[in-house]
């Protein structure tokens, strides 16, 4: 390591020391948000951390609407609905994102099991919608291709 890099690195280190206290504060404030699940980088581990197991059952009763080829990875429209009863939650996992868990929807007795959002996708990936109904987790998976355009301007 040359001298200049050493100085640069020590400065970076000093910078990160300053940043740490504020991170600790923000972590504490929102206990309900499942930080651990959102931080996990592997799909199976992510699923286990959400449900306590990774026994998934593919089901045609879970309807996942996602584009085959995303117009833009920055904003991919995703809709999930199901005809299953007693739906507790809907989760959307994007396998190849840095952290697969993208979003989770905790329903109540008032909710209808139908949600939609727009997600960022770094690259082509399977998108999995998971619906928890009773003790089981039912899924539907679809590949969404993310391409790099020619005329981004």
């Amino acid at each position, binding site marked *: 390591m040359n001298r200049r890099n050493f100085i640069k690195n020590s400065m970076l280190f000093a910078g990160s020391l300053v940043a740490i206290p504020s991170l600790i504060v923000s972590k504490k404030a929102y206990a309900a948000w499942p930080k651990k699940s959102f931080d996990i980088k592997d799909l199976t581990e992510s699923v286990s951390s959400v449900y306590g197991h990774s026994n998934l059952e593919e089901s045609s009763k879970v309807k996942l609407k996602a584009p*085959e080829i995303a117009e833009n990875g920055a*904003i991919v*429209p995703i809709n999930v609905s199901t005809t299953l009863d007693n739906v507790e939650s809907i989760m959307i996992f994007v396998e190849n994102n840095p952290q697969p868990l993208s979003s989770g929807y905790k329903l109540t007795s008032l909710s209808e099991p139908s949600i939609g959002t727009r997600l960022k996708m770094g690259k082509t990936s399977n998108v999995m919608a998971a619906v928890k109904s009773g003790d089981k987790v039912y899924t539907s998976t679809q590949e969404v291709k993310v*391409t790099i355009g020619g*005329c*981004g*301007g």
Partner: protein
Amino acid sequence: MFKQLLLIAFLIPSISAVASPERDYDEFVSYFENRFPDTPFEDYKNGVYSIDKSAREQWEAMEEFPPYELNVDRGEELFNRPFKNGNTYGSCFENDGIGIRQNYPYFDTEKNKVVTLEGALNDCRVKNGEKPLSYFKGKELAHVSAYMAYTSRGNKFNIQIPNTKEALDAYEDGRRLYFTKKGQLNFSCADCHVYQTGTKLRADIPSPAIGHPTHFPVYRSGMGRLVTLHERFAGCLNRIRAKSFKGGSDELNNLEFFTTFMSNGLEVNGPGSRK
């Protein structure tokens, strides 16, 4: 194929010819009628979504709650915010600036130049003692323009070209820029948006040339902000590695004049949502 070649031959400009905007327009429209027989004329206002079904579905999902609505709200605020002298943008325009997007650009026969909406907004600022604003980076000018387009949705473009040498020259200048190969990649606007529209340019489908200006400014999701027509022109020129022009320059004003004339009869539907 022969028919297509024939049409292309018509479209290649001959620099010495006397400009005939009406004839150009008829040739343009019939070229696209032949090229995309399934696309109704009025649908060209939707740009590439008029010819790309899969992209259209995602765009329609976007339109359920388009991201630009936040920008339109902000544009309305800025539009109504008084300058230091108490006047607002509306004071510079007919009908207080509401529902007039389709009248731009026009050729000002006194100044002998093309006036675009963004140009008129900047003229308005200067007249009221404010600084003109940048066309780039999706700031105030883009927001006010987006709001004014939004109030004009459904109104049809009917750009007139006064029968003066200067006006025809401005049109011809825009047309020439449209068809002239430029940059290290040696592309003209027409190469992609006339001859190759509907085919693939890497992973993109170049949009058809008619209907280009109708939905500007656009909210581009990839950039997460508004983009004015001139910034888009400049972006395109950069992509073909050509020297670009400044927002509000005569070159881009004239290019806007030409492309909007080619979109006559289509509705304003700006701001648009694009990838």
